[in-house]
């Protein structure tokens, strides 16, 4: 176990630096902000839907490498999924970090496994979850009739 192996892998740093999904969306169907007051991470998530299907997710804001990398991975993972599929992925991702379970991601989502090492750094788990929890809350709210 070392920082370089668990946290600061190439793939995480790449996702941290990627600007691909880092933007605001003017015509978003859903938008919500999430913050970790204790570390200053503060991100806004934007979702474009086509009926039940996620067309695009982007994020903006400030956050550490783990927070931003996980947000970028989220944007990639959600693209083209139905809301139900999306929620399943989010559930898997959360389990991987919170319940010490080996994740079962399909091949196109294999990059998500890079985040597994975060669980050795308990305080960073909330960084890795911030964007994911924010999107989950958005997906849950309309479903519950809001």
């Amino acid at each position: 176990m070392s920082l370089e192996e668990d946290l600061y892998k190439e793939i995480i740093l790449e996702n941290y630096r990627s600007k691909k999904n880092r933007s605001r969306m003017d015509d978003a169907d859903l938008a919500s902000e999430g913050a970790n007051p204790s570390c200053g991470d503060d991100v806004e998530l934007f979702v474009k839907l086509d009926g039940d299907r996620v067309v695009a997710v982007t994020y903006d804001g400030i956050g550490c490498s783990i927070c931003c990398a996980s947000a970028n991975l989220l944007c990639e993972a959600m693209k083209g999924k139905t809301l139900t599929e999306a929620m399943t992925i989010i559930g898997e991702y959360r389990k991987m970090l919170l319940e010490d379970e080996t994740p079962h991601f399909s091949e196109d989502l294999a990059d998500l496994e890079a985040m597994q090492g975060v669980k050795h750094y308990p305080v960073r788990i909330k960084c890795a979850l911030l964007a994911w929890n924010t999107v989950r809350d958005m997906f849950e709210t309309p479903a519950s009739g809001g």
Partner: protein
Amino acid sequence: MQQSQPTVEPTARVSLNVEELRRDFPILTRTMRGKPFIYLDNGATALKPQSVIDEEVRYYTELSANIHRGVYEFSEEASECYDRTRGIVARFVNAQSEREIVFTKSATESSNLIAYGWAMKNIKAGDEICISEIEHHANFVPWQALAERLGATLRMIPMNPTDASLDISDLDRLINDRTRLVGITAMSNVTGYMPPVERILARARAVGAVTVVDGAQWVSHATVDVQKLDADFLIFSAHKMCGPTGVGVLYGRESLLNEMDPFLFGGDMVLRVRKEKTVFRKAPEKFEAGTPNIAGVMAFGKAVEYLQNVGMEAIHEHEQDLLRYVVERASEIDGLVSYGPADLSTRGGIFSFNVGDAHPHDTGNILDEDGIAVRTGLHCAHPLMQALGIPGTVRASFYLYNTRAEVDRLIESIHRVRRIFS
């Protein structure tokens, strides 16, 4: 792994015998993440010498009594020790009388006490409150909330984004005839920058505004003389001065304290309670309702005595030396940006920085792995960070027990951050 050697002389002339002082702090023998523990988070809270810990223990094992109401020996002794600390603190900041020292639970409670006890009564809609853009939330949010509640206007002395110093060119407009209260930090907890408090207080006095100086950082690092400072209120916290958690101080001019409304109501702050009407005591008792943090106040007395024995001048010089040294050594690191005025004599021992595109949180995490404790993030100073346009900093803050060797370890660890984020 080899860094270039620093160009400053290996040990500057300081009058502290740091190696000896370090033995007073039991925690300094510990390891963190398997490495010798290096504590550079003094801006958040200071380590405690054995004498302070011992006094807490002494209260609980030898006295353990409530104060001011016991007719028995242990209660009398506890009362005496508690009251004695008031005198110790009064002398430490050179107050005219120990009746000017109110014990609170924190600097944060102290500023709120002023807001509720003085400002609620004396500030009206249309009046102005002036603070600065670099304040800690403890001296920012209470005034913002109060201004909103009362319909008063909150003005801010702006920050120069280039070096995080204050721009006081517009002082005469910002502090004007409508200004009722001026709040200013004597030392920024982000950059260590010490604003020109005298200039600001002079202007406040000229317009008759009441003045609040946030000394939470300053008092632990400087020789403080409230009579010379000539502010109406000074707030600070014991835990940043080698004292225990849960004890703060409000220094206030005696006349002003006596004019104020009480803040917390309850036992001990009253002379006489009748169903129709209650008569309150004078300051400081008026502001100390309920059972106080007796053990904490007693231990705080020991902390102040400890600092006095070491000498505030010597502490200040030692921190200046470490600050110059870290600035010098950090200059060798590519992509390191630090914050605060270049003139180090205007700063206390705080070094805030960022490394390349590593987020402060990431840097802090890597330093932690190397046994180094720093604080990262917004440091309860969101407006300052907004003005700087950054998502936070990594803050290394020094105190009397820190050494140049620890700075060397910090620099080495920053190089590791560079390598990971390159």
